[in-house]
């Protein structure tokens, strides 16, 4: 498939200017690559590049609505391959390059692009389209007083193992105060790839989010534990929460308990709430893997999704009020966008308040990181209304 580039009335694309260069030799390509950051973003058009000998090169991505493989064209007389893709403003697109030599096919991150994105299935290259900027509150701020991370081990009878939990205590934490609790699935990944500690420090400092105690959960076998597992839910509700409410000064009311997760972690969050209705006052469900079938059994997700589909189908058949407030988000380029959109009226039909947010992004940690302010400030709003300096 070829993706036509829209011609700008005022300035031609860099790749088109290169095409007309004479002589168009290796040295010209060297200079071109040295001058440009790849992908080259010119307004809404992004030029993806690959340099090297190959029989065929494709851009591999999972943007909903585009073919998974988009072929690059070889620039005549060179070993430079290119593809111009139009991307809406503010988009972030994860991609890899598929390079074919005869029968040998290799899928690699873009060697010309240092930017990486992280998802539950590994890394990929990422293109920041025109208008996307990493939010300032995701970067370390020296003015923000840092909270503290404390590692705990919780003996779980339900899971039959010692479960590591990393607890975030906000700056100025006092034993004589009371804090709401946030439980986070895939804790280490949220800390490492979604800058969760930095984000919490910044959002608490800016008064956007209330001072909160956060428990980051370490999964062992996430695809099993997070796929509507009874034992995981029992661990959360009957073991972890009671222990944290004894050890830390927590408000210990449903309105001050929230469970958060992305992808399969969102399924685990929903599952815990379904198994303990009224225990958690709010849920944060990001890019939930809420795959379901309306008819037939072919959900297309493979074996690991079987218990998820069974769970979601059952919930959709009889939606129940399990929490008061749900924050949901999903990237519009994710294959999960349709299931997530479909869950909004399902949850609302059970009388729950849903705040649903979409972004021009994919199924990755940066998308979930960038939604944290919307999510946390809605679930646990900060004391901005109290401050008049």
């Amino acid at each position: 498939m070829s993706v036509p580039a829209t011609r700008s009335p005022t300035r031609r694309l860099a790749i088109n200017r290169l095409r007309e260069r004479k002589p168009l030799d290796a040295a010209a390509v060297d200079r071109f690559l040295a001058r440009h950051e790849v992908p080259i973003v010119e307004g809404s058009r992004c030029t993806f590049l690959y340099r090297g000998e190959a029989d065929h090169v494709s851009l591999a991505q999972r943007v909903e609505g585009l073919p998974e493989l988009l072929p690059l064209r070889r620039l005549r007389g060179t070993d430079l391959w290119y593809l111009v893709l139009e991307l809406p403003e503010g988009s972030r697109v994860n991609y890899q390059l598929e390079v074919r030599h005869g029968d040998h096919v290799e899928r690699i991150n873009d060697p010309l692009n240092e930017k990486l994105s992280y998802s539950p299935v590994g890394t990929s290259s990422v293109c920041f389209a025109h208008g996307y900027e990493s939010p300032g509150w995701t970067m370390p701020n020296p003015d923000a007083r840092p909270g503290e991370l404390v590692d705990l081990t919780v003996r779980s009878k339900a899971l039959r193992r010692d479960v590591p939990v990393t607890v975030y205590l906000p700056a100025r934490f006092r034993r004589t105060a009371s804090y709401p609790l946030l439980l986070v699935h895939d804790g280490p990944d949220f800390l490492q790839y979604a800058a969760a500690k930095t984000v919490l420090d910044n959002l608490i400092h800016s008064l956007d989010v209330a001072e909160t105690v956060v428990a980051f959960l370490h999964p062992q076998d996430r695809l099993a534990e997070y796929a509507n597992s009874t034992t995981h839910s029992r661990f959360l509700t009957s073991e972890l929460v009671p222990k944290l409410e004894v050890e830390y000064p927590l408000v210990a009311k449903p309105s001050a308990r929230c469970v958060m997760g992305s992808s399969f972690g969102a399924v685990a969050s929903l599952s815990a709430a379904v198994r303990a209705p009224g225990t958690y006052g709010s849920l944060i469900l990001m890019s939930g893997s809420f795959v379901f079938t309306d008819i037939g059994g072919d959900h297309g997700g493979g074996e690991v999704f079987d218990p998820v589909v069974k769970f979601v189908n059952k919930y959709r058949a009889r939606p129940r009020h399990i929490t008061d407030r749900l924050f949901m988000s999903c990237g519009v380029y994710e294959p999960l966008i349709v299931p997530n959109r479909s869950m909004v009226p399902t949850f609302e039909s059970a009388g729950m308040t849903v705040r649903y947010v979409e972004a021009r992004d994919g199924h990755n940690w940066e998308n979930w990181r960038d939604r944290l302010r919307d999510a946390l400030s809605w679930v646990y709003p900060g004391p901005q209304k109290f401050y008049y300096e």
Partner: protein
Amino acid sequence: MNRAVTLLGPQRRPSLEPVVRDLDPHAPVATVTAGWLEREPDDAELREILGGRALNLGLHGRWLDVHERDREYAHAEREHDAALAELRGIYLGQLDHALLAAYAVGHERETRPRFSAAAFDDAIEVIRIVDQQHLARVRAAHRAFYDAWRPQERPVIAHHREEVRQLLGQAQAVVVAGGHVGELVRVLHLFHVEPHLPQVVIAWSAGAMALSERLVLFHDFVPHGVAQTEVFGEGLGVVRGLVPLPHMRRRLRVDDPVRMTVMARRFAPARCVVLDDGVRLFLTRDGQPPADARVLTDDGQITEAGAA
């Protein structure tokens, strides 16, 4: 009212210096920076303006000391806070619907004006009732708490109250800075500051709000959407008949006349007074703002008090 009260806007553009210039250069000036919470002692800039006369009452530090040394009281106060939070949650739920109803009626353009005007009056009256009931319940909760725990008889609190009384007794004036208005008012009440205030009172932002009868919290531009303007509780009542609105233009949708009309009429006969950057209001002896103070009128406009 027999105190000389000056209300200032936020001190991003400092306006305190000319106000304190006429004070006795040798007599102490008490300061309250409890709204700054753990930054309470970081008052070097304020001390400099006051030229060595400052006596910081250290009310936040005293409150922390009470929590450290009187655990029983600290626990009781946490329980009291939890009860107040429940009251507030119920109130905000009621208020949200009442305000949205008033805004919807206020924006109505297709009905005969006499119908929509009457409905608008009713909608505002509902908000006033919700506010009044909430304030009454908060007042009753505080009274029950103070009756049950009698802070004046608890040694640690009584000791701090006495020290605060002595410091205020030496002071010719008190300066109350801004910050967290809820925590500021908590300690002003706990350490019984109001009866011992000196004749000259100067306050800005949250400090000005704390002096009023009702604490009105407002912020239309929080990240999770519009936060409704709410009545939080009672202030010291040193300033009567005014609702100070610091940072008003930064925090409220002043370009929405319906919202501003609801705001003005909701708190009437008290007048909503603008305390933006650089504002300096010397209240008259009967507690009224000067004629050039900017106030919110019943039709949602901002105008000079003398013309309102």
